[in-house]
């Protein structure tokens, strides 16, 4: 839109052409400044939403794994008639899974089951897969920080 309005001023020989171009340039600079401010603000907003969403997940990930462990133990007990031993065992396994869920969430490895880096690293292309295995250990902590903000 702005381009279309700007062109006649520069193309055609008009007496106030320079003046118009200057005003247009100033207006564009103003617009650019305000819209980039807008972009920063929405980025900050998005991070805030993600942070809250992230906090919401921590508790439920912990509990859900515990419940799942208990449930599996209970079902196995009923099936194998070993009440209450498997339920007690799977309570601990479920608890461990819950702690691991939370650890992964906080480390930014998210829902990636199987100790692999999730999401962003693997998104772009397949050649990142090779790099991933050896980069995993060294870059783990550094990437964990900025992935963690993502929620």
């Amino acid at each position: 839109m702005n381009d279309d309005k700007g062109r006649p001023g520069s193309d055609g020989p008009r007496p106030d052409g320079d003046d118009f171009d200057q005003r247009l340039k100033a207006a564009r600079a103003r617009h650019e400044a305000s819209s980039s401010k807008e972009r920063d603000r929405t980025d900050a907003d998005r991070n805030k939403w993600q942070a809250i969403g992230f906090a919401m997940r921590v508790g439920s990930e912990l509990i859900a794994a515990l419940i799942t462990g208990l449930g599996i133990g209970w079902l196995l007990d009923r099936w194998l008639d070993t009440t209450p031993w498997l339920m007690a065992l799977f309570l601990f396994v479920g608890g461990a899974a819950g702690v691991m869920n939370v650890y992964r969430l906080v480390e930014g490895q998210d829902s990636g089951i199987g100790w692999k880096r999730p999401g962003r690293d693997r998104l772009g292309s397949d050649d990142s897969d090779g790099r991933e295995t050896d980069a995993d250990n060294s870059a783990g902590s550094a990437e964990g920080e900025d992935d963690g903000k993502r929620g």
Partner: protein
Amino acid sequence: MASPLEQFTIKPIIEAPGGFDYTNSSLWMTIAVLSATVFLVGGMRKREMVPGPWQSMAESVYEFIGNMIRDNVGSEGRKFFPLVFTIFMFVLFGNALGMLPGAFTYTSHIIVTFAMALFVFFFVTVVGIYKHGFHFLAFFVPDGAPKALYPLIIPIEVISYLSRPISLSVRLFANMVAGHTMLKVFAGFVFTLGAATFGIGAIAPIAINVLLIGFEFMIAFIQAYVFTILTCLYLNDALHLH
């Protein structure tokens, strides 16, 4: 006074044999689907280059989910846009419509959220198996762990995987129930405290309820967001196994 939990009772509106009643829950699901359809179809009716307020709202919801899929799943996730978008709209409208006075919040029932979470879980698992076949099971074997620990780690990984639908559904359901119950409890305080102190005591619970309602609107959006983004992350896991 009515119990704070009374708002969650399911009442049949149209009785049908075999338990297929059309309930207040079904009614609000219908309303959610209709209003989401009207919101989107109505907003995009004119298809203007410079969108009006309604069209720009519809477009921003579309872009919100589009960006979410692009950021979390990548370009391969594009074909799952309809599913993810539908889930988001259904949960968001369920949560938001529940904020209308007298409305029924269908996301406050574990069976509703669990059905959705279970669908997501099975869908993602099928996508993973379809895409990677038998190799999908490598999902549960951690990278670089010593073989001696496999008997311990693999059950943990399996439980961690199976806990997904539970954490997904319980989080949404619990947030909705807790929020709406709290609103009702403080609304009850307005009457009991107000009656005991000639109306002065009612001010504090009313003020708290005003805050809580704002908070609930935020929760309504955040829970829809969390449900959707986890669907995206699970899809990402299934699509990019290694």
